C-alpha cells in the first residue's frame, strides 16, 4: 500500500508530481489506518501560501485531531472540496479520491528531496 511512483514524508503525507511544478498531496494508507474513521477535514483556501513543515490542513478522525504538514514551500492551487461532504474518501481511497490539496511548488526540486517509496516503507516498518 505504498505506491512506487509517489514521494512521501515522515509525517505520512504523499506527493504526486503533476506537470513540472505541481504536487498533489494526501495522507498515506498507513496514516488513514492509524487514524481510523475520518469524520472532518479542515481545508485551506486556494491561494494560501504554505511552508514546508507548516500545518496547512487538519484531518479529524473519530478520536484524534491531526495536522497535515506541507512537504514543500508553495501556494495552494486547488483543494478537494469532495472531502467536505465525504471525509471518508480519505479512508476509502487515500491515494486517489481522498487527495487533500494541489500545491504549486516554489522550487520543483523539493519533490525529489522527499522520501521514496522504499524509504517510506522502511520508515513505517514495512520494508
Amino acid at each position, binding site marked *: 500500500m505504498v505506491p512506487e511512483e509517489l514521494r512521501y514524508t515522515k509525517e505520512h503525507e504523499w506527493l504526486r508530481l503533476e506537470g513540472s511544478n505541481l504536487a498533489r498531496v494526501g495522507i498515506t494508507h498507513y496514516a488513514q489506518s492509524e487514524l481510523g*474513521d475520518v*469524520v472532518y477535514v*479542515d481545508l485551506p483556501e486556494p491561494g494560501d501560501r504554505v511552508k514546508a513543515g507548516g500545518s496547512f490542513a487538519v484531518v*479529524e478522525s*473519530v478520536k484524534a485531531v491531526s495536522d497535515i504538514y506541507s512537504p514543500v514551500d508553495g501556494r495552494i492551487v486547488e483543494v478537494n472540496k469532495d472531502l467536505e461532504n465525504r471525509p471518508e474518501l480519505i479512508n476509502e481511497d487515500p491515494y486517489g479520491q481522498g487527495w487533500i490539496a494541489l500545491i504549486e511548488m516554489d522550487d520543483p526540486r523539493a519533490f525529489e528531496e522527499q522520501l521514496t517509496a522504499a524509504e517510506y516503507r522502511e520508515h513505517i516498518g514495512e520494508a
Partner: protein
Amino acid sequence: MTNDAFPAKPTPLVQRHQALGARMIDFAGFWLPVQYTSVLSECRAVREAVGIFDLSHMGEFSFSGPDALANLQRLLTNDAARLGPGRAQYTLLCNEKGGVVDDVILYRLSDEEYWMVVNAANIEKDRAWIQERLSGRVAFHDRSDETALIAVQGPRAEACVKLLAGEEPARLQPFQACTARVDGVEILFSRTGYTGEDGFELYLDPAAAPAIWDRLLGLGQPLGMLPAGLGARDTLRLEAGFPLYGNELTEEISPLAAGLSFAVKLEKGDFTGRDALLRERERGSRLKLVRFEMTERGVPRSGYPIWHDGAQVGWVTSGAFSPTLGKDIGMGYVPLALAETATGLEVEIRGKLKKARIVKGRFLRRERA
C-alpha cells in the same frame, strides 16, 4: 495471566481482543480495545443490531450486613432505601463541597447485600473514600479483580441474552437484575448500559469470561453482532447524552450543575455533600451542563472554549462527530442564565468561532422494541 506481557493491566478477555485484531490502548491503567474494525461501523452495529463490549476494567464493590443500607445512604446522593432486591439505580458519591467523587450504579442483590459498580479510573480513590467513612456492622470488599463484565447492547441484545440464558434474564425490565446459570457459570444479568440502547450487562467470574464471550459472539453474529471498543462506547454515550467521569463530572462540579438532580435526593436524610448541594439548590448553580450541536461544520473537542456575545463563557467537556445523527455534537458548561435561553453560542475550534445550537434533552431517543 502475568501482567508483564502487556503495557497495562490486561482484562480476562485480552487474548480475545488480540485474536480479533483490536487496536489496544492504555485506558485508566487497563489494556483495552479502542476499536476492532472501525468506530463508525461498531456504533452502527449497536444502534441497528447488537454490540458486545468488554468492560472488565470497571470496578465492583460489595457491601453486606445489617448496617449496609445506612452506610450507603450516608455515602450516596440517591435514595438507596427505595431499592427493592433485584433493582439498581444511578447514584453519586459526592465530597463535602458537593463535587462528584464518582458516578456509580448501585444494585440491591438481597435484603442486606449491595453491589456497586464504579469507574475504572476511580477504583482506588473510591475504595479509600468509602473505607474511611464506613461504620457499624457492614462488610465491604473490592471485587474488581474477581469480576469480569461483558455488555451486550442494542435492539437485538434481548434476543442474544435469551439464546444464552433463557427467558428469565431476557424478561428483566430496565434497572432490574437477576442471577442465572450458563454452562454451570453463575452470571449476574442486569438490564443496564451506557449506549442509549436497550441492553444488558453481565457480571461473572473472570475465568469463565472467555467462554461466555465466545458463546455470545457465536449466538450474536447471525444477528449482526460486532465487538465494540472504547471508541464506539464514548461516541454512543455522548449521543445518548450521558456524562463521563473526568469529562462532564469532576470533584469540582456538582451533580446539580451536571443535570443529574434526578439522582440527588436532598430530602432523604443526611449524606456527604448534602449541605453544599442544598445551598446550591437555593442559590442556583453557577454553571450548567448543556448539550449542543454544531450548525457550522467542525468537531468540538474536550477543552475547547465556548463563546457568547464576544466573550468566552464556558468550555467543551466532550465532543464528537455523531454517526447516528450525521452531525457534530458536544456537551459543555456555560453560566446558568445562558443554558436556559442562549442563542448564538460559538465553539472556538483552532482559533475560529463556529456556531452551535443548544439541544434540549437528549440528542436521540430510543424506544425499547
